[in-house]
C-alpha cells in the first residue's frame, strides 16, 4: 500500500478536519467582523473613558500571542468555573482576537476618511447612528477590502493553533495521520493543499468585490 493510498483510506479524518476548519474560520470571521464594527462604533460615539478602555483592550489583545488566548480560555477558565468544549473555546478566542484586529484596520481607514462627508451628513440632520451605518461604515468597508481579505487569511491560518487545544481541524487531522502511519510528508502536503483551497477562495471573492468597487470608482453601499 502506497502512502497516498493510506491518505485516501483515511480521507474521512481530513474531511471532518476540513469541515471543522472551515466552520471555525467562517463563524470566527463573521463574529470578529461584527465585533470589529461594534468596537469602531464605540470609538466613534463613546465617551472619552469608553474610548480609552476600548483602545487599551485592543492593544492588550493585539500584543497577546493567539495561542496564549486559546490556552487561557480552554485551560484557564475552568479554574474560574467556566467550562466549554474545545471548539467553542477556539471559536471565541478566534473571534475576540481577530475582532480587535478588524477594529484596528477599520480605525486606521476611518482616520483617513475625508471629514467633509461626515460634516455633510451632520448638516443634513443625520443622527449619530445613521451617520455611522449609512456613511462611515460603507466607506470604511469599501476602502479596507484588501486589508480585510488579508486579515481573513491570517484568521484562517490561526485556526491551526487550535489543534493544540484538541480541536479536530485540518492540522490535527494531518498530525494524527502522520503519527499513526509515519507519513508526515504526504499528510502535511494534503493539509497545505486544504488551507490553500480556502485561501484561494478568499482571494477570489475579494478580487471580484474589489473589481466591482473600482469599476464604479468606489461603489454602492
Amino acid at each position, binding site marked *: 500500500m502506497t502512502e497516498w493510498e493510506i491518505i485516501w483510506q483515511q480521507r474521512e479524518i481530513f474531511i471532518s478536519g476540513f469541515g471543522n476548519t472551515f466552520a471555525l474560520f467562517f463563524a470566527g470571521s463573521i463574529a470578529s467582523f461584527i465585533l470589529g464594527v461594534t468596537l469602531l462604533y464605540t470609538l466613534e460615539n463613546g465617551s472619552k473613558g469608553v474610548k480609552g478602555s476600548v483602545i487599551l483592550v485592543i492593544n492588550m489583545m493585539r500584543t497577546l500571542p493567539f495561542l496564549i488566548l486559546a490556552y487561557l480560555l480552554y485551560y484557564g477558565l475552568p479554574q474560574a468555573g467556566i467550562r466549554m468544549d474545545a471548539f467553542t473555546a477556539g471559536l471565541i478566542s478566534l473571534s475576540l482576537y481577530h475582532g480587535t484586529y478588524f477594529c484596528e484596520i477599520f480605525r486606521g481607514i476611518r482616520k483617513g476618511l*475625508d471629514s467633509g462627508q461626515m460634516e*455633510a451628513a451632520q448638516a*443634513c440632520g443625520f443622527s449619530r447612528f445613521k451617520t455611522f451605518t449609512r456613511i462611515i461604515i460603507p466607506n470604511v468597508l469599501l476602502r479596507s477590502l484588501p486589508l480585510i481579505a488579508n486579515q481573513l487569511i491570517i484568521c484562517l491560518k490561526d485556526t491551526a493553533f487550535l489543534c493544540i487545544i484538541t480541536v479536530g481541524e485540518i492540522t490535527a487531522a494531518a498530525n494524527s495521520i502522520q503519527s499513526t502511519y509515519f507519513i508526515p510528508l504526504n499528510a502535511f502536503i494534503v493539509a497545505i493543499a486544504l488551507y490553500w483551497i480556502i485561501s484561494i477562495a478568499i482571494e477570489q471573492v475579494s478580487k471580484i468585490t474589489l473589481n466591482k468597487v473600482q469599476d*464604479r*470608482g468606489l*461603489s*454602492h453601499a
Partner: protein
Amino acid sequence: MLNEKIHTGPVETPKTVQETAPVVELPVQYPKSESNAQDIVKVVNLSKQFDGIEVLRDINLTIKKGDVVSILGSSGSGKSTLLRCMNWLEQPERGSIHLGDERIGINPATRKPLKYKELAKIRERIGMVFQSFNLWPHLTVLRNVMEALLHVKKMPKVEAEKIARAQLEKVGMSHKLDSYPSMLSGGQKQRVAIARALAMEPEVLLFDEPTSALDPELVDEVLTVMQSLSKEGYTMVVVTHEMEFARNVSSQVVFLEKGILIEKCPPEKFFTHPDSPRVRQFLKLDGA
C-alpha cells in the same frame, strides 16, 4: 407693560399669584416678542475663539426671508466660521443664533447644549453647501440626494426618489442620476450638492465658498444655479470671493475683518460708496 401691572397690582390670594406666575416668566424665557416673523436667522452678539484667538467678535446679523446675504472678507477673517456657527458645526463661546423662534445649539430654558438629536432636528431645516462638495462617494448621484430624505425624514423610497429627481432636474443634473461622484466634474459635483441641500426643503441655505474649489470655467454653471435659486425666493447666506455674484445677486453684503463685522449694506452701496475705509481698500475704490 403687562408685567408691571401684575407686579404693582394688589396681591389678593396666593392662588392668584400662582396662576399669573408663568405669564410673568414667559417673555424672559422665549424672546419671541423681539423677533420679527420675517427674520429667518438671527445672530446676536456672537463670539468665537480658536485656542484663545478670537475669530469672531460680537457679531450681530439678521437675515430676513428671501434675503441673499453675501459674506465677504479676506482669508482668515472668520467668514466661514460665522457660517459654520449657523448650523452649529462650530460652537461659539458667547452670543446666540436663532432659526425662526428656535435657538440653535443651546436649550434656552436650561442653557445647556442641545442633545445631538435635538440639534439634528434643527439642522434638517438648514441646508449647507460646502467648498469641497462633500458628496458621499459610495452613493450614486440620485442616492446622494435621496439619502437624507430616506434616513432623516424617513420618507418612503418612491416619494424620496421623486423629490430627488425633481431637484436634480432643477440643477441640470438629470443626465447623471446613476453616476458616482468620482465620475463628475467639480461643477457637476457642486450642483448635485446643491440639489441634496434643496431636497430637504430648508428654510435657509448656507454656502461655504461654493465656487472656490472649481476651475474658472466651471464657476459659472454653479453661480447660474445659485442665481436662479435667489429668484425663486430662497433665503441664502453665501460666503464667497465672487464679487460679481455679491454685486448682482445678493440683497445684502456683509464684510468681515479680523472677526469683526465692519460693513453691512445693500450691494449698490457696498460696491460704490461703502462707509468703512477698509472696505474701500479691499475693493480698491480709492485708486492708487
